[in-house]
């Protein structure tokens, strides 16, 4: 299996010794031909640039721009021609990269065309027709690919006649290294961009609405939509909704995940463990909308059947907690299991030697030793629960009032509908404007900062354990 990049960049190491040897004559014609070809392209670009500049042909772009582009491209191809003539390896690398790019672009174009015929139709196509199109586009692919493909093949085959000096090699190495540093910095760049843009967008909310109303206001009523009295932007209902559903998810989900994690790490035989691991992987891979749909179609009618006064919809905090607990289960289980497995075997052996049973060992030795990992697991579970969006929108009911008990019993608050911070953003952002939109961005900033702190805390706990 030879990956693409080693095709392009694999400068044969033996080449260093071959530089001084007599090269076989027949293979020299091909690079000379390529040099001529590049020279031709260079001339073509130059001519096109000048013709466009003197208005002989119309390229429908700025004339000066056309001239400059033409000159630059023609210089580049001239250099390429010179490189091929003197058998430089960088010329080969450049042309190979260009060829791969051309092949990719052509492929994308063909795929776009093919799918717009076969898949976009309102009517269903017959199998015969689909096969006809497949054949047609297969032939077209071969036709388009033939010239770049053949060039690519020959260029790849005659790699030993190209050469490079140690200085060029060093320069190339250095450039690559700096380029890779650039890619490594992309992540921190994205974090900075997230900060800058969300803060900048939420500025308006802070200046117009004020931090006090945003953080302590209990009414969320974007007046721009309802169009009646003045608008209110208090985030308290959403904060409470988020907190209640997360607490519910923790209460239901944590015992389940801890039980499963202890079972997998300590008790279950290898075969059962493999099955469970596959299942948990699948559970973490299922899209959140599927959970949301399940909550709407299955859990909501079940909750509706609970005979309590005022319980009519089935949507609300209880439903959201159940769905969330299933969603955080894989995260918490995996981290807890890892933490339990990281406890040294000698601890367990010492405990057995003292006469403790398996369960006593787990309860009194293994779990206390793994406690920092377990705490981190719970924190990450909370962070996952707070960040979840679409599944919650589908099951929590999305009312903008502060959740309150639906009858005299204060515990019946779990049947009340609510709205989460994340859901609030996702529901309203697509049509919001002005201060409303800015308030939503402020919600995002709040959530971002809070989750940042939580995640750093979890990381810190886990890392502190590792080093000690």
């Amino acid at each position: 299996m030879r990956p693409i990049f080693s095709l392009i960049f694999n400068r044969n190491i033996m080449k260093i010794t071959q530089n001084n040897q007599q090269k076989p004559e027949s293979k020299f014609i091909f690079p000379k031909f390529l040099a001529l070809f590049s020279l031709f392209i260079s001339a073509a670009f130059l001519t096109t640039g000048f013709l466009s500049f003197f208005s002989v042909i119309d390229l429908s772009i700025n004339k000066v721009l056309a001239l400059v582009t033409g000159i630059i491209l023609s210089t580049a191809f001239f250099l390429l021609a010179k490189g091929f003539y003197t058998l430089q390896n960088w010329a080969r690398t450049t042309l190979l990269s260009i060829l791969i790019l051309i092949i990719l672009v052509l492929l994308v174009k063909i795929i776009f065309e093919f799918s717009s015929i076969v898949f976009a139709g309102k009517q269903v196509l017959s199998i015969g027709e689909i096969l006809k199109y497949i054949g047609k586009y297969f032939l077209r692919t071969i036709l388009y690919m033939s010239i770049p493909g053949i060039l690519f093949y020959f260029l790849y085959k005659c790699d030993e006649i190209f050469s490079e000096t140690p200085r060029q090699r060093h320069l190339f190495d250095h450039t690559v290294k700096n380029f890779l540093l650039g890619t490594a910095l992309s992540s921190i760049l994205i974090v900075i961009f997230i900060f800058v843009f969300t803060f900048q967008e939420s500025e308006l909310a802070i200046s117009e609405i004020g931090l006090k109303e945003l953080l302590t206001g209990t009414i969320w009523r974007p007046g721009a939509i309802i169009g009646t009295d003045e608008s209110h932007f208090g985030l308290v209902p959403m904060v409470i909704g988020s907190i209640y559903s997360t607490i519910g998810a923790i209460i239901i989900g944590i015992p389940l995940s801890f039980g499963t994690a202890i079972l997998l790490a300590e008790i279950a035989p290898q075969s059962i463990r493999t099955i469970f691991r596959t299942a948990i992987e699948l559970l973490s891979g299922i899209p959140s909308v599927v959970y949301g749909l399940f909550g709407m179609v299955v859990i909501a009618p079940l909750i509706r059947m609970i005979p309590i006064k005022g319980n009519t919809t089935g949507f609300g905090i209880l439903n959201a907690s159940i769905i969330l607990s299933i969603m955080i289960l894989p995260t918490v289980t995996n981290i807890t299991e890892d933490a339990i497995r990281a406890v040294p075997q000698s601890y367990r052996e010492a405990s057995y030697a003292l006469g403790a049973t398996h369960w006593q060992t787990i309860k009194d030795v293994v779990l206390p030793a793994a406690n920092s990992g377990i705490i981190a697991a719970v924190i990450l579970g909370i962070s996952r629960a707070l960040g979840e969006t679409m599944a919650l929108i589908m099951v929590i009911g999305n009312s903008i009032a502060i959740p309150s008990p639906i009858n005299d019993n204060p515990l019946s608050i779990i049947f009340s509908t609510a709205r989460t911070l994340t859901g609030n953003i996702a529901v309203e952002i697509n049509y919001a404007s002005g201060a409303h939109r800015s308030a939503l961005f402020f919600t995002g900033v709040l959530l971002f900062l809070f989750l940042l702190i939580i995640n750093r805390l979890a990381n810190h706990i886990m890392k502190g354990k590792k080093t000690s």
Partner: protein
Amino acid sequence: MNNSLTKQQRMAAAREKINHKPNIRNRRLVQSLAFTFLWIMGFTTIAVLIWIVGYVFVKGFPSINMEFLTTRPAGGFDGEGGISTTIVTTVYLVIFTLAIAAPLGIGAAIYFVEYANEGQTRNKIIRWLVKTARTGVEILAGVPSIIFGLFGFAIFVSYLKLGFSLLSAGLSGACLVLPVIIRTTEEALLAVPESYREGSLGLGATKWQTVTGVVLPAAIPGIVTGIVLSVGRIISETAIFWVTLGGSYRLPQNLLSSGRTLALHVYMLATETRAFDKAMGTSAILIIIIIILNLAINLSSKYFQKRLSGK
């Protein structure tokens, strides 16, 4: 008097120790109770999975047929039509997102593993930059998808005026999967034995030749695992594309047109139409895709381990 009492006490304690049978039985009972509880917990987890997947499959499979797969959604409140355009949009989005995220992520991981610990990092600024970049990856990995969505909405949709489009969605999605790719690639590169590198460098190859000719080919299955993982992430993600991709059910003609992915289609069917059966059918297809991707990850990581342990 005092002496005899202590003797009595000692005798009682000794008798209790000898008579340890109830104690053992007690402890065994507690242990079996606790283990039963744990097994119940474990099987509840599996039961929940089987319930969800089984329900979606049983309700979803009847609505999957050739027409469902090859016609486009008709729009409107009845949720008529198939899912062809959403499948194609999902494929476009996956390819486009990975085209941005994979080179960035793999490049960053190569730098972290191969270059960051070199002697040249005596340079203080570069050492600081590397440390910051690592923190950045950690932060990104914990950011929820709706924040990426907000970010994409602010910068790509509004500020750069790309609108709801494949381009905005792909760029935002790339930010989402970047930490996944960086982490898995890093692990794969770290798993390549140091002796491979030493052998290559000893033959006179440069660092970059070593990386592309020796280290990357050895780490390919691990990198593929990361890419497949991020494919799964993109397919199952909804929130980020809800605020950047729009929701048009037509086929995207170019990178600037709006569209909807499979997961987004499920959401829209469930919240805006009455077509729960079609939503279930689409969900079933999503779950099948995820199962296939998981199988691919398992196979590739097994292959990777076998290869590195010397076949």
